[in-house]
């Protein structure tokens, strides 16, 4: 499923990272790699961006960016 559908404070595993090549590469560089655990830890007013915890880092992702990340 998409990261957008993830429940807050539940732990998921990254399945795949899609998106345009440059943006995808940057997400991978930041450590959003397949197999990695992540959790949505905070919602922001408007629900965009959302804050995920991954590799010990809080990362604010726009919905557009989160939609490229599929999790299970």
């Amino acid at each position, binding site marked *: 499923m998409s990261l957008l559908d993830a429940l807050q404070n539940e732990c998921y595993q990254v399945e795949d990272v899609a998106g345009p090549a*440059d943006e995808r*590469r940057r997400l991978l560089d930041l450590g959003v*790699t397949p197999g990695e655990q992540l959790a949505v830890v905070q919602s922001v007013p408007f629900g965009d961006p959302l804050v995920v*915890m991954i590799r010990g880092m809080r990362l604010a992702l726009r919905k557009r*960016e989160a939609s490229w990340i599929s999790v299970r």
Partner: protein
Amino acid sequence: MHSSEAAPTVSTTEAEQVLTPSFESHSQLPTICLTGAPNAGKTALMNALTGGSFHTANYPGVTVTLSRGKSKSEFGSQLLLVDLPGVHSTSAVSPEEELSCSVIEGRHDSVQPEALIVAVDATQLERHLRFASFVARQHKPMVIALTMMDLLPRAQQSVNVRKLENAVGVPVVPVDGRTGWGAADLMRALHLELKDAAPRHTSLAVLPDEPVSAYKTIRELLSASGALKNNNQFLLARDSFTARIDRVVLDRYFGFPIFFAILVGLFSSIFWVARPFMDLISWLFSQTGHLLLAVLPAGAFSRFLAEGVVGGVGAVAVFFPQIIILFFLMTLLEDSGYLSRGAALVDRPLAYLGLHGRSFVPMLSGFACAIPAVLAARTIPSKRERLLTIWILPLMSCSARLPVYALLLGALLPGAAWKAGIALGVIYVSSLLIGALVAGLISRLILRKRTASLLAMEMPVYRKPLVKPTLRITWTRSSAYLKRAGTPIIVISSCLWLLSNFGLGSRQPASTEGTRAPLVAASDLDHSFAAGLGQTLEPVLHPMGVDWRVGVGLISAFAAREVFVSTMAIVFHVSESADGQQSGLLDNMRTATFSGTSKRIFTTSSIIGLIVFFFFSLQCLSTVSVVRSETGSWKMAGLQLLFYTGLGYILSSGVVTGLRFLGVA
């Protein structure tokens, strides 16, 4: 560099043009670069190693210029330390990251490091070690400075430094830049590496560049060596100090009210706290001017010094208290970690306008001064969003416009301070709204093609800012501003003084040698170059409903907006008394008429027209020069000057004509 994959946002040459500072001095010392991912505690480390005044921040990518300094002498033979901007990704996106990568890879012309110190956050080993592997691939002497050790208990992690060192094959030294703990050990390790010139085979250097397998290898390396225990990141996420604060400041209902309360607090301090200091500074400079005139032999030169030079310096210095307060509070917000939350909060509305969450910092600074604002735009990763942010910055009502609005509103609404206050509030809010409108229109109509844009912003943990470093950074940034903005303003105001005091066939001030020259030699002004220019421009000024004297004011205001007020005082023959200048000026403006007629110059419509002109037209030539150096070409800077000044002129003329058509004088 993965040039094939790198985002084509900024070309290498442009980034270097924009961000290359001059490295003329210190060239005899070996250069050591400090690198790391943003928020690795790199700049605090720089402070500890040099004992100097460097920027340390908790906001991703805030090191806007390369700071450099000599290492403290107690750390052995001196080295030149250069702090490189933080790098999130080596497939570089922002011009700052590109700059850092080019230095690390030895592609930079003026910064050639002999060794590198890589700051690695102990609580985020995997990510930071991956960046360290990029550095290790260059096969230069390197040392890892392990920071944030004090945060490990919070994350319920423990790091075994010896095992980590064996695993990565590079010296690892735990440090705390904030207290200076470990700095001496770090420098000792660095000196050893510099002596031992043989290239090391490190397990970091053989890590693949491809992120997925690189991260996998690092994790295996860390667990097999036993360097890292209890990698439980989620504990940090749910129950930590940072999570509790985030729940409040990013709350669905309280998030925005808190954000606006912080902004209002920041603004009120910029305007109210700075006020008495600004009054003191302007009094000091006017006294210095009087003193110079009294002490020096009367003549053109002493008047040039007193009015042109001292007046010019005063015009810059008067904003210094505001700039100091702005930088101090911004640094506090950055260091505490709140600034990136603010950026996340406003990202959605700003992205709708084609801007970026990080655009809010430059926009905010723009209300104090456009110059630090343009510089602050460097942290915006995509070129399109960065340029669009810079494009709308002149609309943010900078504080140099405040004295102009105060004068014009005083003339428009005499004796009703509260009305003027409300009008001023309307001007400020409209400047933000019109800025938003312009950004939205440009991004939707002109830059229709969507380009790569990514928020993916790290939100650092909250930490208590330390007072001393914050004050040091504030001072570094403020004095850099003074240098940056001051030079052009002084040059321009000196030139304008010469233009308004000399002219063909004028009574040269020099001929009054021996007699005391009046402070305001208005009769000279009537024949000066500036008057000639103003008179030539008079037909152009006609639609705005003003005469050449106001035109001289408008031209001089390109040195700095507030110069308009002092020029008005000169052209409308106000003799300077200690404090009555403004009221004297208002009286003279009220009675001023077009020469040879009894038609008033300052009527309701022409004053509103002037306010409209100042609202839209680009504030000063220093802004043009900063935009030029930040964008790397005159194109955008010139276009901006023409666009806003033209817009101001057209709208102002339109408003005056419209109001007169409606019967408003």
